[in-house]
């Protein structure tokens, strides 16, 4: 098959950081090509160079054999390169139909033909298998639904090259299946696709070839059939990939001795987000929350963290009933909460790594008692090393870090106040294998040191590997707590969820 995209010797620098260093990349017509690498390996930068968001500092791009240089995403789109990003990049104040056709609306003279646009939108979504009210504002739909709209938009633009940058990270299993189906159909029609995902099973299911990047350099390209999972992880991490198994050993060796609960919820609930539930978290215990997207995982975590107000039941912490529970009093009592959406709810992008880390500690001390600079530097350096934050520069603005490293900064912030209960909502979502391993290892270590952890994750493997007990949620209800080791398996969780489904 002919090469449709050829990138050679691509280099890109960001204020002193070399994000890409002489990377070559080729894409053939009709292939699905996975770009793999840890966070910060340069995948996103490579994509952004190809889609015209960034101009390369060196190297050249051939599209259909002709050299091209894009100055904007619009230019790349016009040349036939469409992109679906991890974050939904649509405008949610406009209707679904308008988002699908923005910039290329059917028109009568100078005026947009809304009737034709809605009809075309309906036909397009029907084709893909989504039933939405196309005239409703996009904001009335969930993030997963909005992501599907974004994909539909990219699919409909007659693209030669379609780039899917972590499109599945907010989709549940059925939605992923349909997306992969759409990708196969497009590949059969000759569309070349670049697929970026941290879900190795999806990559192995769909990709024809893989290109691995590490630290901004090209490691190599392989046919999927020729590259086993262990070898792939080895290439991505550049070290022996036995680390994940090591975590398993840490978790297995550790067991909870103290039986008195540190935090205990009795009939705690909030109308419209989670039905009243009982849950106890003991000292030094990791409690996992498992369930599908929208099952109430995040809502449960937010209630326990005091981020939302409960309208039923009680919460006891350290034997005392909590009243007026809110994030500030929670932090003062030693309950730390890392929210799911690190961009909007956690980090201050323009502040440095060090400043972001110190925020919670400063808040806990009060504004009048500033943290002495020497102590601050020592603590920041200690946690950068402990969590393996890269680049290890405390003065780097946090927005320049990759997702996994941002997550580590957020974790470090809460660890600095030495919490007794750490609530982690999807700490590993959308980050690479290496950072994931670092975070998992950290959770195991912390609980071994006596910290209690509530761990929310969409990935069952991760929950089962780390947790001492697993609370299973479905339809905004806590349906079961799996206590014994034999119960805490992937299959058992799925069975529990399905058994409660009844009609489905």
């Amino acid at each position, binding site marked *: 098959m002919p090469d449709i995209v050829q990138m050679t010797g691509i280099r890109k620098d960001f204020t002193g950081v070399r994000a890409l260093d002489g990377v070559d990349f080729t894409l053939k017509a009709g292939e699905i090509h996975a770009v793999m690498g840890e966070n910060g390996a340069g995948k996103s930068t490579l994509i952004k160079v190809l889609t015209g968001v960034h101009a390369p500092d060196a190297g050249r791009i051939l599209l259909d054999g002709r050299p091209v240089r894009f100055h904007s995403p*619009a230019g790349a789109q016009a040349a036939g390169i469409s992109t679906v990003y991890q974050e939904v*990049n649509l*405008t949610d104040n406009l209707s679904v139909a308008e988002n699908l056709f*923005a910039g290329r*609306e059917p028109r009568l003279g100078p005026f947009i033909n809304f009737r034709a646009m809605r009809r075309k939108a309906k036909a397009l979504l029907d084709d893909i298998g989504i039933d939405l009210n196309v005239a409703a*504002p996009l904001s*009335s*739909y969930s993030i997963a639904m909005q992501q599907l709209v974004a994909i539909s938009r990219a699919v409909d633009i007659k693209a030669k090259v379609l780039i899917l940058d972590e499109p599945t990270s907010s989709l549940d299993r059925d*939605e992923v299946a349909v997306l992969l189906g759409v990708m196969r159909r497009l590949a059969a029609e000759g569309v070349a696709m670049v697929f970026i995902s941290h879900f190795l099973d999806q990559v192995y299911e769909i990709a024809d070839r893989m290109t691995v990047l590490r630290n901004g350099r090209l490691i190599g390209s392989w046919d999927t059939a020729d590259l086993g999972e262990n070898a792939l992880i080895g290439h991505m991490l550049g070290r022996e990939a036995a680390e994940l198994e090591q975590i398993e050993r840490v978790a297995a060796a550790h067991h909870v001795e103290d039986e008195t609960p540190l935090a205990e919820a009795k009939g705690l609930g909030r109308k419209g987000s989670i039905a009243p539930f009982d849950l106890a978290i003991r000292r030094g215990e990791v409690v996992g929350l498992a369930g599908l997207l929208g099952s109430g995982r995040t809502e449960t975590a937010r209630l326990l963290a005091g981020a939302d107000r409960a309208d039923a039941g009680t919460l006891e912490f350290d034997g005392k009933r909590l009243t007026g529970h809110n994030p500030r009093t929670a932090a003062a009592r030693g309950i730390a909460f890392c929210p799911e959406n690190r961009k909007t709810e956690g980090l201050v992008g323009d502040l440095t790594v060090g400043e972001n880390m110190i925020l919670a500690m400063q808040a806990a001390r009060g504004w009048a008692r500033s943290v002495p600079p020497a102590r601050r530097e020592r603590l920041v350096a200690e946690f950068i090393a402990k969590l393996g934050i890269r680049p290890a520069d405390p003065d780097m603005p946090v927005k320049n870090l990759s997702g996994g490293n941002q997550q580590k900064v957020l974790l470090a912030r809460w660890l600095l106040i030495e919490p007794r209960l750490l609530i982690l909502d999807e700490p590993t979502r959308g980050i690479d294998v290496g950072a994931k391993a670092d975070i998992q290892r950290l959770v195991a270590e912390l609980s071994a040191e006596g910290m209690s952890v509530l761990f929310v994750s969409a990935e069952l493997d991760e929950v089962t590997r780390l947790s001492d007990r697993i609370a299973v949620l479905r339809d905004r209800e806590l349906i079961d707590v799996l206590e014994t080791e034999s119960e805490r398996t992937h299959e058992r969780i799925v069975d529990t969820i399905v058994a409660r489904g009844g009609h489905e």
Partner: protein
Amino acid sequence: MSTVQLTERPARSTLFDGLSRYLPISVTVALLVALYLGGVANYPNFGNSQVVAKLFIDNAPLLVIAVGMTFVILSGGIDLSVGSVMAFSTMACAWLTVDAGIAAPVALVLVLAFGTGWGLFIGAVIHRFEVQPFIATLVGLFLFRGLTLQISDTDVSMREIGFFQWGMTHVDFGNVREGGFWLPYLSFVAIAVVIIAFAVLHYTRFGRSVYAVGGSESSALLMGLAVARTKIGVYAVSGFCAALAGVLAAFATKSANPLANVGAELDAIAAVVIGGTLLTGGAGFVLGTLAGVLVWGLLNTLIAFQGNLSSWWARIAMGVLLLAFILLQRVLARSGEKRRA
């Protein structure tokens, strides 16, 4: 390809989400009707149709700058220069025709072109150099007030120029003495501006891009929309509207006052917000702005009919209304976030 039905339409009605954006404008219209009926009930002659017509005469320039401001605010920006550009345009009309002796129609075109050009320039500055619109347009506020006073620090009359009689030439609807009313040409210009703005905002690519950029500029860029053209365009529209408002003022008063329209930009912003447009951009209607301007006009009319109140009471009422509408917007935005969560 026909696949399995991947998603079910959420059980919760999406109708409410669709309608909640009409709530602020409905409140404004209800307020407008209540003010009018209150006036009719309390004051004799308030029901006279000329009272309504007068709203479109006295507030024609404000309506035009508020329409321009609607474009800017919808895109997520703000334009503080419109009051000064408007005063400058009136003064420039007087200077070009009375002092320089240029034919009035030519002067008029020059003034409108200049206002548009200024908007293009400041829009380009805001976009290219990523300057806060607040600061960039503040430049215009000072610059044009200064230039206006530089041309003349006293009133300049344009009564000698026959062309300026055109604006107040009026059309009678029915017999004015027997329940009919009259409207001057300049009111028709203002109404035409509203209609054209409505069509552009709702039915053209440029208009929809304004909403998209106001909703999320980075998303609009990644969707491949012409963000630069849109952002610069809204300031050009606002500049044009400010110049046109200045021309209408010249028609209405046939004189140029260097200290006219101080604070007009703030009146326009208030009218836009009371009309239901979100200050953060992305949501609102130009017809809401019309309603906002009429609320302001009716408040003034009511106070005039009352006769024993200082005209500052209109501002006090406007301040209270503005507060109420800002709070309403926040409450709506929050409930929207909650429903999605």
